C-alpha cells in the first residue's frame, strides 16, 4: 500500500517538474521533522551499514572499524550538541536486497540521525529508494561511476572526474601513452567509467583502434590469455597503458599473472582505480613496483593530520601493521562534515542537517580542506601513486588544486546537460540546463 502511494508521487515528480518536487520535499520534511523532534534528547544514533560477512566483508569491515573509532573519539570530546553518539552496527552480509532491508530498519526502528555505509554501487542503488522515501541521510565513502545526485546521499568518494580522468591525463602527459586498454569487471561502475573514459579519450584524438575494452566476470581468476592479449595489443609500436577498473578480488590473480608474464610497469603501466593499500596487503608487491593507482588519499601522504590519523587507527585496531586507505579518509571527512553541520544546525533533523551540510569545509588528510558542494559531492585533490615494494604508494603527481566533482559526466551524451544543486532555489539533483527543467534525462 505504502509502496503504491510512493510510486504515484514518483510519477507526478516527472510530470510536474520542479514545483511538485519542492512540494514533495516539503511534505516529506514535515513528517521527518516531527519524528526527529521526538528524538531531540538522549543519545544520537549513527547507523553503520557495512557488510561484515560475505564477499564484501574484505573491504567493508575496515570501514565499520574506522566509524567506531571516529564515534568513540567524538564521544571523548563530549559528543555532539552535548549528546553522546551511539553506533548502530548492522551486517547486510554482501546481500544487496538485505542492504535495503537493514537501511529501513536503521531509519525506522533505530531512528538513526545519519547512516554511514555501502561499498558497491549496486548496494547504494538498493538503499537509495529507502533513504529517499524515509528522508534519511547516507554518507557513501567509495569512489564510484557518478551519474547520480540524490538529496539524501552525501557522496564523499570520488566521481570519475576526480579519479579516472586525471589518471588518464597523467599517463598521456608523463608517459606519452597513445594506446589504451580499458579492463574492468563486468558491472555498472567499470562500464560507466569506461564509457566516460572512451569518449574522453576520443575527444583527445585517440583512434578507436587504439582503445581495447575488456570485461571479465566477478572474481575472475584465470588471466593468462587476457594478459597475453594485452601484451599483444601493447606491441603495436605505440606506448600502451592499462586502465583497470577490475574489482577487488580479481586483482590479485591479475597482478600475479602480469608479474609472471614479465610485464613491467616500465613497459605497460597499469593504473588502477580499485586497488589501494588494503588490496596490496594481500599481495607480494615486488613484481608490481611502478604500477599506478589514482586516489584522493594514500597512506603515504606526508602530513601531520595523516600521521595523527594513522597513529589513532593503529591504537584503536591494536595492530600496527594495518593500513589506511581512501574510503577510510572519505568516512573521516564525511563524519566530520556531519558533526560540523549538526553543530551549525543545532539539531539532528535531517532537513536542517542537509541544508547545513552544503558549504561545510573540513580538513582532509592530505593537507587541505574538502568542501561539500551543492551537488552533494566533495572537493578533493587527485593523487597518482606508484606501487612500492613495501606495499605503499609513492605519490608521483598531485593536482595543483582541489577538483570539484562532476556528478553528471559531460562525456556522456544523455547527461552532458545535467547538473545537480540541492541549494535553494534550484533544489534539484538532475536539472537540465538546456531545457531549464528539473528531472533531466535519467535519474
Amino acid at each position, binding site marked *: 500500500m505504502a509502496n503504491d502511494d510512493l510510486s504515484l508521487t514518483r510519477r507526478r515528480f516527472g510530470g510536474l517538474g520542479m514545483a511538485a518536487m519542492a512540494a514533495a520535499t516539503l511534505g516529506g520534511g514535515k513528517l521527518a521533522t516531527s519524528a526527529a523532534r521526538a528524538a531531540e534528547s538522549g543519545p544520537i544514533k549513527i547507523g553503520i551499514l557495512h557488510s561484515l560477512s560475505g564477499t564484501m*566483508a574484505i573491504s567493508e569491515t575496515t570501514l565499520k572499524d574506522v566509524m567506531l573509532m571516529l564515534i568513540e573519539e567524538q564521544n571523548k570530546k563530549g559528543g555532539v550538541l552535548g549528546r553522546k553518539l551511539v553506533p548502530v552496527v548492522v551486517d547486510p552480509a554482501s546481500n544487496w536486497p538485505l542492504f535495503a532491508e537493514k537501511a529501513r530498519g536503521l531509519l525506522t526502528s533505530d531512528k538513526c540521525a545519519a547512516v554511514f555505509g555501502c561499498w558497491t554501487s549496486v548496494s547504494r542503488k538498493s538503499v537509495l529508494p529507502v533513504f529517499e522515501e524515509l528522508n534519511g541521510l547516507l554518507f557513501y565513502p567509495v569512489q564510484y561511476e557518478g551519474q547520480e545526485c540524490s538529496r539524501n546521499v552525501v557522496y564523499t568518494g570520488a566521481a570519475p572526474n576526480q579519479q579516472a580522468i586525471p589518471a588518464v591525463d597523467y599517463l598521456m602527459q608523463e608517459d606519452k601513452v597513445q594506446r589504451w586498454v580499458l579492463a574492468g569487471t563486468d558491472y555498472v561502475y567499470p562500464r560507466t567509467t569506461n564509457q566516460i573514459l572512451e569518449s574522453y579519450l576520443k575527444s583527445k584524438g585517440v583512434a578507436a583502434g587504439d582503445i581495447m575494452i575488456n570485461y571479465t566476470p566477478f572474481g575472475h581468476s584465470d588471466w593468462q590469455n587476457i594478459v597475453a592479449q594485452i601484451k599483444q595489443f601493447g606491441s603495436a609500436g605505440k606506448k600502451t597503458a592499462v586502465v583497470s577498473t577490475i574489482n577487488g578480488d580479481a586483482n590479485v590473480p591479475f597482478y600475479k599473472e602480469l608479474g609472471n608474464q614479465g610485464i613491467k*610497469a616500465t613497459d605497460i603501466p597499469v593504473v588502477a582505480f580499485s586497488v589501494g593499500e588494503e588490496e596490496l596487503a594481500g599481495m607480494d608487491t615486488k613484481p608490481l613496483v611502478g604500477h599506478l593507482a589514482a586516489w584522493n588519499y594514500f597512506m603515504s601522504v606526508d602530513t601531520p593530520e595523516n600521521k595523527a590519523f594513522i597513529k589513532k587507527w593503529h591504537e584503536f585496531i591494536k595492530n600496527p601493521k594495518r593500513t589506511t586507505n581512501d574510503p577510510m579518509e572519505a568516512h573521516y571527512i564525511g563524519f566530520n562534515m556531519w558533526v560540523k553541520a549538526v553543530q551549525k544546525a543545532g539539531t539532528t533533523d535531517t532537513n536542517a542537517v542537509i541544508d547545513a551540510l552544503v558549504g561545510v569545509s573540513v580538513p582532509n588528510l592530505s593537507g587541505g580542506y574538502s568542501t561539500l558542494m551543492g551537488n552533494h559531492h566533495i572537493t578533493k585533490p587527485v593523487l597518482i601513486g606508484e606501487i612500492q615494494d613495501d606495499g605503499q604508494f609513492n605519490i608521483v603527481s598531485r593536482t595543483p588544486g582541489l577538483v570539484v566533482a562532476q556528478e553528471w559526466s559531460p562525456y556522456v551524451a544523455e547527461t552532458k546537460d545535467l547538473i545537480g544543486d540541492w541549494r535553494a532555489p534550484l533544489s534539484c539533483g538532475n536539472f537540465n540546463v538546456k531545457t531549464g527543467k528539473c528531472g533531466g534525462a535519467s535519474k
Partner: protein
Amino acid sequence: MRFALLLLGLVLLPVLARAGEPTDAFSAFSSGDYDAMAAAVTELAVSGDPRAGAVITALQAGRLYANAAGQLLIREADGSFRDIASGKPATVDEDDVRKIRMNNAVRRAADAAQGGLRLFAADPATRRLAAAALFKSHDPASLPALSRALAKEQDPSVRALMAEAEAAAMVMSADAPEAKKLAAIAIIRARGDLDASALLASIPNPTPAVAAAAHDGVVAIQRVLQLWDVLESVFYGLSLGSVLLLAAIGLAITFGVMGVINMAHGEMVMIGAYVTFVVQDVIRSEAPSLFGASVLIAAPLAFAVAGVIGIAIERSLIRFLYGRPLETLLATWGLSLVLQQAVRSIFGPTNREVGTPSWMSGAVPLGGLTITLNRLTIIAFAILVFAALMALLRYTALGLKMRAVTQNRAMAAAMGIRTPWIDALTFGLGSGIAGMAGVALSQIDNVSPNLGQSYIIDSFMVVVFGGVGNLWGTALGALLLGVVNKFLEPVAGAVLGKIAVLVLVILFIQRRPRGLFPLKGRAAEA
C-alpha cells in the same frame, strides 16, 4: 681589466661547469623532480664518472638516500651509510635521511643507463642483460658503445643479443643510411617476437623502402606468432584445466564416489590455502632460508589438516545424513558459511599474502610461447596428485576397501569391513586432496575466506560433466573444459565465454545425463 676578467670567466665557465657536472646530476637526485632525475641518470651514465655505476645500482635497489642538505648517501648491506661525494663512511641518523624514490620514467632511464654501463662487464650474464636492456631502450645514442662492445665480444649468444640491440638503435637513429637500416630490419625480423614486431611498427620517419621492409617484417612476425597463439591457448587451457582438476578431484571422491553433496568442499580448499599462509608465516619468522621449500612443506600439512577436519565433519555431521541428499546439501552449505566466518574471525576478512618461491615465479620462453613457471608447476602437481590418488585406490588395502564400500556397502560389511570407518576415511581423503588443491591455488589466487566459493560451482560442473563416480572422467572433463574455455575466451570475451561453456555443458548433460564416462553395470545402480 674588467673585460679580461670577463673573458677569463667565459673561457673558464665551460671547464668549471664540466668539473661540476656530476655534482649537478647528483643534486637532481634529491630534488624530487622526476624529469630532472631521469635526465640526470642519463647524463651520469655517459659522464664517465667512476661513481655512476654504484649510484645507479643503489638507486635501483632502493639504497640511495639523501639528507635535508641534498647530500647523497648509499646504504650498504649492513645498514651503514657511505657518502657518495667523498666515498667515506658517514654516520647519520636514520630519521634525518630519506630514501630516494623513482617513477617509471626514472626507472626506464636507469635500466637503459645500466645497459650502457654494463656492456663491458666481465660476466657474460651481465652483458646479456645489458644488451637486452639496450634493445628495450633502443636509444641511438648507445650505438657507438654497442659497436665497440660488439668488436670485443667473444661469446656468440651475447654477440647475437648485442647485434639485435645495435639493430634496434640503428632503425631508431635519424641519420643512419638506408642500407644499414634495411640490414637492421632483417636482424630484428629474424628475432621474431612481440618486441621485435613492436619495434618495427614504430620506426620514426621511414623512407619508402624502409617502411615497406618494416611492414613486411611485422606481417611475417605476426603470421608466425599466430601459429604460436594456438599452442599458447592449448597451454593456457591445460593450465586452467589442471586448476579445475585440482579443485574438483577431492569433490570427485566425496560427491562422485560417496554421493555426498558436499557444499563445504570449497572451504576445504580455502583451509589448505590458509595452511600455506601459516606455514609461510612461521618460515618467515623462524627459518627464512627454507622459504623456497614452503610450498612443499605446506602440501602434506594441508592434506593432514583438511583431512582431519573432513573426518571430523563426517563423524559429527554427515554420517547422520546419508541417503538424505537435500538435508546434506543444506547442512554442508551451512557448514561452509560457518567455516568461512570462522576463518574470517581468526585471520581477518582481508586477503593474506602468500608468496611465490623464486623457483616458481617468472616465465621461460619456449619458441614463441611464454611458459609461466607457476602454471607449469601446478600442471605437474595436478598430474602427481591424480596419479597418487589413482594408485592409492588401485593398489592399497585402503583403496580396495573404499571401492568395495562404495560399490556394495552391505556386501563389504558382510566381508568384515568397518564401513563407517571407511566412510570417514574416504571423506577425509577427499577433503585432504581439496586441502592440497588450496596450496596450489594460493599461488595464483587470493587467499581470503571467499576463496572456496569461487571454485565450488566449477568443481561440481567438472564432476557432473566428467561422469559422477569416475575419476578419469573428472580428469578429462577438467582438461576439456579448460581448453574449450581458453579457445572461447579470446573470441567471445571472458563473460560470454563462461556463459557459453555453461550452456554447452547443460546441452551435453541433456544428451548424456551421466556425463562423459558414465559408470556401467551394477556399480551404477548402487
